[in-house]
């Protein structure tokens, strides 16, 4: 009962922090920030959740297996996006050369593959942050 206010406030704020992290990741190509910063924001929203509601609930939300998967496959996703170029007969990590439509400059969809690559990096960074936090909490207890 003691931390009722904290929990209520967190329930209101945390979803917005999470969505803001996704926003920063996806806007990496057109605005400051990017997948690394955004990934940390997403990760920190889970860290805050685990600190406020307790580690057990945090771990129930993001089980270790999920963290292992997102960590590995987030990075692999980056590599696969790089392979798009190879499939089209142009170099690794090619973007416009690979025939991806770059859209109108300045708009959200003007990065070609970059937001997709950023998504992989963001997911990886987020899960790394959460893993680091869980590991440190385990060592303390």
């Amino acid at each position: 009962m003691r931390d009722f206010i904290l929990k209520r406030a967190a329930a209101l704020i945390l979803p917005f922090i999470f969505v803001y992290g996704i926003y920063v990741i996806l806007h990496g190509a057109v605005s400051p920030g990017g997948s690394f910063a955004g990934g940390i924001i997403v990760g920190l929203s889970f860290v805050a959740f685990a600190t406020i509601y307790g580690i057990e609930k945090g771990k129930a939300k993001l089980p270790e297996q999920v963290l292992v998967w997102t960590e590995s496959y987030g990075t692999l996703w980056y590599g696969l996006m790089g392979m798009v170029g190879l499939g089209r007969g142009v170099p690794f990590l090619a973007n416009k050369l690979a025939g991806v439509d770059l859209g109108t400059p300045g708009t959200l969809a003007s990065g070609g593959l970059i937001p997709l690559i950023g998504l992989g990096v963001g997911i990886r960074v987020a899960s790394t942050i959460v893993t680091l936090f869980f590991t440190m909490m385990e060592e303390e207890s």
Partner: protein
Amino acid sequence: MTALLRANLPVLVVIAPLFIAFILTPLARRIRLVETLAFLATVLGLGAAGHLATVVFARRGSPFIYQLGGWPPPWGIELVAGNLGVIFALVVTGVSVPVVLFARGNLTAEVGDTGRVTRFYVLYLLLVGALAGMAVTNDLFNIYVLVEVVTLSCCGLVSARRHPRAAEAAFTYLILATLGSAFVLGGIGLIYMLTGHLNMGFAGQELGRVWPDYPHTVLLAVSFVIIGFGVKAAVFPLHVWLPDAHATAPSPASAILSGLAVKGYLLCLLKFLYGVFGGVLLRELAVHRILTLLGVAGIIAGSLLALTQEELKRRLAYSTVAQVGYLVLGGGLLNATGLTGALFYLASHAVIKATLFLAAGAIQAATGKSRIRELAGVGRKMPLTMAAFTIGSCGLIGLPLFFGFIGKWYLLVGSLEAGMILPVVAILAGSVLCAAYLLPVIRTAYFRPAPAVAWRDPGRPQKLALLLLATAVVVLGVRPGPFLELARKAAAELMAFV
């Protein structure tokens, strides 16, 4: 399909091990699959490097240039697979295959449960991929990133062993290596500040034009680069972290750290000194004299320190400090013969040190003893392991018809060509000292009576790995022809900047 592969070879050498590293962690429960995948990754890397070598050979000297993302050089990251890149990529991928074979089913005692073993393989593949990247990259910041990947995976590999000493060694290594990274980054920053380029070719050209205007900044950049890579490559006075780290790591990790990781930094140092700073600047700042002196000091001091070690793996680790001395010395001679010798010796030492460390690891695992005088009679109980160790020792001493001989010979001739007598003395003394610290091991193992215990050669994959490496030491020693040609062409590539 083959055309597609062929067009992307320089990047495939790097990303093949990296990709497979990323899928290993979720498979931790199926350890056999992890081991097989890791083995396949190194074999794929070797295949790609071999194919790259044939492609570059067929191009007769003009390097295979690959632009990541299709961005041309001053802006994008450029991979250049010339003879220098090819020789190092071949060494890295070639040594990584037997080492991963040796690790197969053999890590539980040293590393722990399947989760930890999987992590070991992930770090191992990241290390191999990053080293292959060092071979082909032509971008300063790219080199920094690869240096960091190599450093962190090395620290992870050292701490993989469940032993308090391993944790301590890894921590010391982490601190000193991070300091080294900071120096490297500082050097790269200064070069970028002076030239406005991160591409090595462009930075080198621009630096050649502007350095008289900024003599002090250039001096600072050169010293940062030498100190940074010197710490990481364990060049003599900066070697303090190496013996602990390499002696306490799990044996396959020791083999790859001593055999390859240290060489990666030396290759980067050579690329910086020749490709970016250039021969004129090196002569002007007397960098080549400093390198020669560091090399001489390293050979003598490393060998003497190795002589005083009681533990087998520590003796081998100090021996690495001495062998790094040869390579630094070769880099400082500033002539084609010396460089050929250094590059050839780089390859020989990678193979030989991997053989020695794996054999030492097998002996330690079977007998549970690490001190040399406790190893009486090992030669008769573990014939194959000790035979591999003996062949490796002969190579490291530099006996003719073994892999180490040609490299040392070229270094010797190169020193004479440069008109310097001190390196000649150091190279010869180094060989004698090397015999002095390795032959007693062999004598104890073969000619002292064995205690009545059942020590046995390791399992089949381990035997195969030792056999492969020992065969390479002999075959490449007897027929060094094509490899020597490759080393000579690679040296010529570097000498073009002098």
